[in-house]
């Protein structure tokens, strides 16, 4: 009888522990993930790579948000500015993407790359 009672108590304690720790673990994992995303933007190239990976997975809105974190630290990043414009076009905000592309210069982006970006936005590069 006593063994039985102890078993029940032990099972109850384990269940309680599981209930206590599972949501906390999931929460911690989620926070670790968003902290890692925040850290990725501290390095310009790592941030751009993160955004590219997100876009490749179809997470374009997350990719644009990542580039905005990169640009907050590296506001002159031509790569981030160009990709930001291109991803806006990819989510069908072609007007917004083109407004940003027009602020870039051929000599900064490279003529062919800038032309490709305009084409991706469904437009010819202005001469």
């Amino acid at each position: 009888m006593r063994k039985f009672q102890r078993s029940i108590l032990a099972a109850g304690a384990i269940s309680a522990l599981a209930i206590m720790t599972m949501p906390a673990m999931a929460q911690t994992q989620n926070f670790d993930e968003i902290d890692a995303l925040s850290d990725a933007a501290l390095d310009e190239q790592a941030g751009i790579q993160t955004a590219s990976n997100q876009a490749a997975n179809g997470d374009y809105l997350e990719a644009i948000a990542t580039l905005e974190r990169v640009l907050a630290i590296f506001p002159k990043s031509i790569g981030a500015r160009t990709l930001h414009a291109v991803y806006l076009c990819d989510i069908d905000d072609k007007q917004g993407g083109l407004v940003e592309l027009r602020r870039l210069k051929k000599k900064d982006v490279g003529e062919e790359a800038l032309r490709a970006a305009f084409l991706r936005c469904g437009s010819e590069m202005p001469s």
Partner: protein
Amino acid sequence: MKRSSPRSTAALLVSVSIIASALSVPASAQGRVEVGNAASVVGSVEIQASAKAKKRKLARKQRVAWGDIITTSKKSQAQLLLLDRSSFGIGTKSRVRIDKFVYDPNKDRSFTATLLKGALRFFSGRKGRKQSGEVKTSSGRIGIRGTAVDMFAGPKAVKVGEHEDALKGVKDKKDEATMVILRGPGVGTAGELTQGLVEVEAAGVTVVLDEPGLAAYIPRIGAAPIGPFRISDRGLLRSQNRLAPEVKRANDGGGLLGDLLPVAAGLGAAAAAVLISQDGEEVPGVIVNPNDSPVAGCDDPDANGVC
């Protein structure tokens, strides 16, 4: 050794259950409900737990919770990243309160926030079965479904809309106006994203924005929203400048951060790889140091968006 009675065993089991239940109660019942982090902080940004609470400096990766008010100063901005990867981009001289955020990875996500003043950009995060959001301003309510949307309240709303043909002759109050611009995703989006949709409601009238570039404007408290109308390139540029002041400032040639931090040595492999022509041919990116030739930016572009 004393034997425990069935009654004491039962009492112990009940105690264990009560402790477990108490610890599994939603955090809301226990106090602070943390829903995300400050993923990016530039300049002077403060956080306070309520309108009467003391303001503290917001640090990158600091947790944000229900009821927190984030305030940005001049030349400052922040991005909050929520647990479902949704984000709030907060522009310069802005004030935003996170009223509520509920996220179940297997079910749905909902949030309510208040844009007290300034500029706010929202991007929805991970796809869920049901996603809803609501942003309140002094003059209206903005209902959001899986989308990218720019919102302005107060003087910034007036500034973004001041050259829009659709708003000529409108009598607005600069501390009460609200401007909303849907940015996407549109029907032609990549990535199988949910098409964005925004409902702007005030004075019992609802304006629906369902295409990128459509906007609505509430001129003052008690007035119905004007719209939908297509925002001009000039308006979009003004919007962008208010949401990302550092990018504007740096490329105007006055960026302090750009001078202090290492800058891009080029477009970057990741960015270049993205610029693939439609026939799959990769286009090389020929890059020079962007610091050598900062792009001219301006706050007041002409009607074509040209500075």
